[in-house]
């Protein structure tokens, strides 16, 4: 039985880390553990469970800033924001279903630590772009802070960027501040039917290169589209390409019309209204096509320059079988393949070598994630620098050892 330490306060987090350092006992740092399947299995004797460090401490909608305990449930954050008609614009995904758990779990700290961003990433930025500041306990057992509770800040190094996407390997965050934004009044999605991957991504690039502030750009090959819960999409019987526009009513209608015109040369065009749009983009965000019956498949997230997407997608399927769908205008490829001991890692990374990009294994059994580099291996000098950065925060390797890279 792994022992679980469950601090109630930031001071207790400090005590726990100091103790762990003195005992040379690594800690498995958790929000609520909904993303334990993301990253390599942590080699730690004890769990540091942060779930009691929860609650919104400061939120004034007019300031566009929210401050909360790291383990504040996302449900609570979403609700508070919804009441003020605001949201986290980076659209954090909910990995619950992907890992075969329920949806609607997870914490704000976890979302930041994993730098999770959804389809709106291409317009609004990633979690890291909305993360303003934090307080934390480093792996050295010291309390420190960086950033602030204001939107614009160049006061010292921006350590928030380092914390975002560090999977709890640098420091244990005890308070976080994020930028929040108004929810768009209206959302619509323009669908293009029957385009192959190449034409679809060309159409998406055109849309993104227009002045229409496209806030979502995805493409589902026919076999993926047919699994959508949105009737317009599953009923199409063809591949479906989608762009989302948001804003005040008159503006959305105007942008929609322009985008329909832009898509017309590529094939038949449809439109999704608010409700269906919301359901559709949630599926894209949460990798819904690879949940349920697809639970046994391994899943990769591959990020490449958008124009390289279709070629990469084609090569992945040719080499390894499986299915892909595209988000971020073709630049994010979700790839599911039949489970294998190496998860196809070497092949996948060979495919993207020339175009530049990275591949992350987001779903596989623990033994596979132990054996395979889950995150894109870095060239020597970059890996060395990253290791020195880790040591700057956690020289003894107390926090989530091995979560990102073996031995770090």
């Amino acid at each position, binding site marked *: 039985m792994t022992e679980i330490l469950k601090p*109630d306060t930031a001071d207790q987090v400090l005590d726990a880390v100091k103790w762990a350092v003195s005992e040379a006992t690594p800690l498995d740092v958790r929000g609520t553990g909904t993303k334990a399947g993301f990253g390599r299995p942590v080699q730690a004797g004890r769990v540091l469970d942060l779930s009691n460090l929860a609650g919104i401490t400061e939120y004034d909608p007019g300031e566009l800033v929210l401050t909360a305990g790291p383990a504040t449930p996302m449900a609570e954050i979403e609700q508070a924001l919804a009441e003020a008609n605001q949201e986290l614009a980076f659209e954090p995904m909910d990995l619950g279903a992907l890992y075969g758990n329920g949806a609607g779990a997870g914490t704000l700290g976890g979302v930041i630590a994993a730098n999770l961003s959804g389809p709106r990433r291409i317009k609004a930025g990633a979690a890291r772009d909305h993360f303003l500041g934090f307080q934390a306990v480093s792996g050295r057992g010291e*309390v420190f802070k960086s950033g602030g509770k204001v939107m614009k800040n160049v006061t010292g190094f921006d350590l928030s960027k380092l914390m975002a*996407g560090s999977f709890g390997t640098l420091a244990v965050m005890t308070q976080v501040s994020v930028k929040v*934004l108004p929810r768009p009044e209206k959302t619509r999605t323009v669908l293009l039917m029957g385009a192959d991957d190449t034409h679809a991504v060309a159409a998406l690039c055109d849309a993104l290169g227009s002045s229409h502030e496209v806030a979502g750009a995805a493409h589902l090959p026919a076999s993926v589209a047919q699994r959508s819960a949105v009737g317009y999409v599953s009923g199409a019987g063809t591949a479906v390409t989608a762009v989302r526009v948001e804003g005040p009513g008159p503006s959305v209608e105007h942008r929609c019309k322009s985008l329909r015109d832009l898509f017309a040369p590529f094939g038949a065009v449809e439109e999704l209204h608010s409700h269906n749009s919301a359901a559709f983009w949630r599926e894209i965000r949460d990798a819904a096509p690879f949940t349920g019956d697809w639970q046994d498949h391994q899943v990769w997230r591959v990020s490449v320059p958008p124009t390289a997407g279709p070629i990469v997608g084609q090569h992945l399927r040719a080499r390894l079988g499986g299915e892909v769908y595209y988000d971020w205008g073709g630049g994010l490829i979700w790839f599911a393949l039949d489970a294998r001991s190496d998860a196809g890692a070497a092949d996948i990374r060979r495919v993207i070598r020339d175009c530049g990009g990275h591949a992350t294994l987001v779903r596989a059994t623990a033994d596979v994630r132990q054996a395979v580099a889950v995150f894109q291996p870095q060239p020597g000098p970059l890996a060395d620098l990253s290791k020195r950065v880790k040591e*700057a925060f956690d020289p003894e390797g107390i926090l989530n050892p091995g979560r990102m890279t073996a031995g770090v």
Partner: protein
Amino acid sequence: MLMPKPDQGVIDRRAEIIAAMRAIVPGEGVIADDAMLRAFECDGLMAYRQLPLIVVLPETTAQVSEILAYCHDNGVKIVPRGAGTGLSGGALPLADAITLGLSKFNQVLDIDYANRCAVVQPGVTNLGVTKAVEGDGFYYAPDPSSQIACSIGGNIAENSGGVHCLKYGLTTNNVLGVEMVLMDGTVLRLGGKHLDPGGYDLLGVLTGSEGLLGVITEVTVRILKKPETARAVLLGFNSSEEGGDCVAAIINAGIIPGGIEMMDKPAIHATEEFVHAGYPMDVEALLIVELDGPKVEVDYLIERVSEIAKGEGAIYSRISESEEERAAFWSGRKNAFPAVGRISPDYLCMDGTIPRKKLGLVLQRMTEMSDKYGLRVANVFHAGDGNLHPLIMFDANQPGELDRAEEFGADILKLCVEVGGVLSGEHGIGVEKRDLMGEMFTEDDLKQQQRVKCAFDPDHHLNPGKVYPTLHRCAELGRMHISRGQVPFPDIPRF
């Protein structure tokens, strides 16, 4: 301002260093002549001046790598420099350091519309990026007022902002990748045309690091299609509080304007007299709100903004009816610094950020300080994101006035921190605000930041004396006192 004591040993080796540099950078790229070095003795913070040991202007990444490797091996310091428009002294030379100018890195390397990005060298100006793509209707969004002159490398080093940053983000949100050289000569690539490279976000921490972590030699930025149209509205108020409340009301109505700027009465008067933008002279605060997008959206939102402003007590309102008029509205704001420079022999430009709701309090206290120090102050304000630029007017030829102005400035920044804000919104700490870092950060906060510096530059050769008030040796920073088995099991819930 106390700078690190120059290393006499390095100064004595000047001739040898010049020879070594000339072997790497042929021709006129090595400047050692005093008269020519003068041009580099300060950046935009002109109160501080120092001749560099020498200036080197490399043209290739390989040369930068060789220069840094040589300096690393021979204990010579480096001060990176872009266009020298920085306002916090980040590019202030050191007597024992080479100023490494990136001005010859001035090529646009690749424009990739399909992937919405441009690859440029760091010496290309901010406006140069937009110029390279505007023929096809694209632009680079962050637009500092210095955009004609400042370099994109300097923008990354300072995480520069502009009037459109509330909607379109700061530099850090618009940079996709860089090539950089570490102090030991190692060349690294971070990011690229794809998004969110995994691993630690080193690009994120490099942005805003004020030349302390590495030398940027290539940049990939996001470019955007220009909005179809833009219109601006001028709104006048009886007080800055009302102006601030109006900003909050606009945002609370779910509107994020392309730009939202505020000026107080002294700033309105200074700029109006300078550029005749057509500002009302009888208001205490003036807002410029710009909406951009399709015409239908702009027309719709500008009406809503005008309505909201009426409800918040606006006593003046004028909507731009043409591109010329919109440009005129902005001309005052964009020339605020030179306008103040015209009515005062000298001025200091401060740069704090505050929670917007504290604006009234901060301006009120600033008025009191202005009386106390006997110096005038004009305020321009990036109102959407709470970034305040008080311009303190003084005359350096009057004994003691510079010192008083600096004290006044420090008091303003301390006030920003006191109300929950920060010391710098976009100009950086440099040397100017270095000694105020303790107002915002504890010793442990600063040490943790410097440990990151040590991971990049363990000998403090790159831009030392900037940003951090105390230089700790990296060995000392890294040392950890561990009492194995001595800490009692913490008294916290366990399961």
